[in-house]
Each structure stands twice: as structure tokens, then as C-alpha cells.
């Protein structure tokens, strides 16, 4: 009995050691990296798109959100957005108010008198087209995917509308289309950029807040933007590696 116990303990220890060692070795293997990264740069010489957003210039007119709805047939009800604008208002007592009436499409009204405001600013939001996008990783059917250009897309004919990706996106950039019952999201106007046009929100922005460009092209506007500004990404602690870069992003922005 005692001998058996010693044997089984020894066996347990060797098994445990083998398992730990095996996992450690396996974690270094390259094919398993595919589980961590939603997409890999298949074509390092091809385009790799991203977006720069210069908050110093945003005047909160909401034309980007309006144009996006027109261009992409997004339902006009105020709960469905591919891109929208938020107004952050920090009051003198330290409290913070975030408003986004109809995504900014109908314009913003200043809700607090100047004397009470410590700081106020606008933040346009959109899909961050993350390199390690959680939304793509959770899709059970392969309807959420990333194009070879690094753009997070939806296959509406394949989506089953389970809404798992809506939950997974840390930036709240997806919604279930009310009539088609499938997920819809920003495509960075994939149908436009592949024809040499600019995304609709970039096209209509009156102050040039949004800079669309190819991160693989050292001469692109976006690369210059990243060189000249001390940009930040939203929620870097989520380790999603967003490709939307904000200039003048304050720590208060969530």
C-alpha cells in the first residue's frame, strides 16, 4: 500500500512536470500564434490601412456620422452607428459628463455654462480595426474577419447574428442591424478605398480631423501624421493594437 502510494505520487509528479514543460514548449511554437493574432500581414508589401484622428481640430459638427449613415445605409434611429462623436465635459468640481445626442448628427448644444466647465472637447469614435481584434477571434462561424489590408470586415451572408462580437468589442463599435438581423460595423468604407476614394467620413470632414492612409507606405499622410504627432490609441491595456491613432487624446477618454 505504502509502496503504491509512493509510485503514484512519483507518477503524478512526472506527469505534471511533462505537462507543464509541454505547454511551455508548445507556447513558443509559431502556428499557435495564430490563436493570439486575428490577422497576420499576408502581404507585407501591400497596403495596411489605418486612420489618424486629430482631436485638436475636431469641432463636433457630426458630419462624419451623418455621411457614414448616408454612405452605408445605416438605420437613422439614434442607436445604430458605425461612427459617432462624443462630447466630453469636465466640470470644475471634477465630475465628467459624456454626451452624444444622436451621435452628434443633429449638432451639439453646450449643456453647462462656461463658468462651470474645466475642459470640454469632442472625440469622434469608429472601429479601431485592431491587429488583434477580439471581435474576429470570438466569431463562431468565420463571418467576422480581417481583410489582407488589415480591415475588420463582416460577411453579412455568413453571419448568424449571435451578437458575440458585439459583446467582445471593447470600443462598442458593432451593432445588430434591426431589419437584416446581422452584425454591421465600420468597414473603413472598403468599397470606396478599393476604388481609390476616401472613406465618407474623411471626405466630408470640414477641418481635416481624420487622416486615412496606408501604414506600409512611408510617404502616406498617415505615416506623416504618426511621425509629427504624439498619438495615442484607445484602451491600450486591452492589448488589441488598434490602428486608429488619436492626437491630443486626454486620459479621461474611455
Amino acid at each position: 500500500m505504502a509502496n503504491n502510494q509512493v509510485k503514484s505520487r512519483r507518477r503524478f509528479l512526472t506527469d505534471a512536470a511533462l505537462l507543464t514543460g509541454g505547454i511551455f514548449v508548445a507556447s513558443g511554437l509559431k502556428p499557435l500564434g495564430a490563436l493570439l493574432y486575428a490577422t497576420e500581414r499576408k502581404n507585407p508589401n501591400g497596403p495596411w490601412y489605418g486612420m489618424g484622428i486629430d482631436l485638436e481640430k475636431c469641432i463636433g459638427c457630426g458630419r462624419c456620422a451623418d455621411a457614414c449613415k448616408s454612405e452605408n445605409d445605416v438605420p437613422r434611429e439614434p442607436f445604430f452607428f458605425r461612427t459617432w462623436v462624443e462630447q466630453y465635459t469636465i466640470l470644475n468640481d471634477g465630475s465628467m459628463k459624456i454626451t452624444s445626442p444622436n451621435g452628434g448628427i443633429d449638432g451639439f448644444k453646450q449643456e453647462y455654462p462656461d463658468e462651470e466647465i474645466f475642459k470640454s472637447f469632442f472625440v469622434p469614435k469608429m472601429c479601431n480595426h485592431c491587429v488583434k481584434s477580439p471581435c474576429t477571434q470570438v466569431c463562431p462561424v468565420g463571418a467576422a474577419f480581417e481583410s489582407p489590408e488589415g480591415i475588420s470586415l463582416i460577411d453579412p451572408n455568413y453571419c448568424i447574428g449571435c451578437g458575440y462580437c458585439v459583446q467582445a468589442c471593447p470600443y462598442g463599435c458593432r451593432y445588430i442591424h434591426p431589419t437584416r438581423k446581422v452584425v454591421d460595423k465600420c468597414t473603413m468604407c472598403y468599397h470606396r478605398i478599393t476604388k481609390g476614394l476616401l472613406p465618407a467620413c474623411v471626405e466630408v470632414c470640414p477641418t481635416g480631423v481624420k487622416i486615412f492612409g496606408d501604414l506600409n507606405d512611408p510617404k502616406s499622410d498617415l505615416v506623416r501624421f504618426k511621425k509629427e504627432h504624439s498619438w495615442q490609441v484607445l484602451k491600450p491595456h486591452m492589448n488589441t493594437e488598434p490602428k486608429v491613432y488619436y492626437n491630443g487624446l486626454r486620459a479621461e477618454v474611455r
Partner: protein
Amino acid sequence: MPPQIKRLALLFALFIGLFLVVRHFLVPKSFGEFGHYRGLSLVENQAKTPKYAGEKACADCHQDISDLKSPNEHKSLSCETCHGPGLEHINSTDSIITVRVPKGREFCGMCHAKNAARKADNVVQINVADHNVGQNCTECHNPHSPWLTIK
């Protein structure tokens, strides 16, 4: 091998075989072409028709307005910022489909209403509540050249 295991194994083999056959017919041809998704979806996503034409397309016909706008404060605005999507208008014969012409103080106010979040350097701001109340902005300002005197 016990007979019940044999029977179970056969059942399993049948089930897996059936699964593979069904899978073969249900999974679309282009699935996995570029990654874990339907490759054709890329083409479908590209195929959508744009609605915004871009500023160059507008200037092809409306060069006069483009020339009026380009040297002044509104030069950074695309035509479609205010006039809305224009490709349908461009493609329509005899321009039956027109672009929108925004009217009213609210529309201009979306950019020009005084707001603590707007920087003075970026945009001229007015207090909508006491700036020539009751008048339309376009009575004094030409949207294509805001400081042009209007007769």
C-alpha cells in the same frame, strides 16, 4: 475488443463520415481562400456602390463655385459636407436628381454655434441666440465665400 465497443466505433465512424460529407456540401467554395472566412465576401464588400463622389467630381461641372470657394475660409470643406452625397446626381441624366441645399440657422450652427469644446482657432463661432435673430445666415453670408458682400 468487446462487441459493444466495436458497435460504438462503427457508429462513430458512420457519424464522422456523414459529417464530412455534409460539411463538403455546406461549406462555401471560397471559404479559407485567404483565411478563416469566405473569400468571396471580400469581393462582395468591395462591390457596394459609393454615394459620395468626392470633391474633384463636383468641380468637373461646377468649376465656378469651386473657384469661388477655394481661396476662402471654406476651402477645406468638401462640397458634399453640406450638400450631401452627390454621385447619384452626377450619374442621373439631365441632373434630375439634385443634391440637398441646406437651409436654416441650425445647419450652420452645427459648426458655428458657440461651444466650449470648439477651439477659436479652428472655427468662427457665434452665439446663435443673439446673432441677428430671425434672419437666415445666407441673407448676409454666401456659404461659398462667407465674407463676400451680398447685394
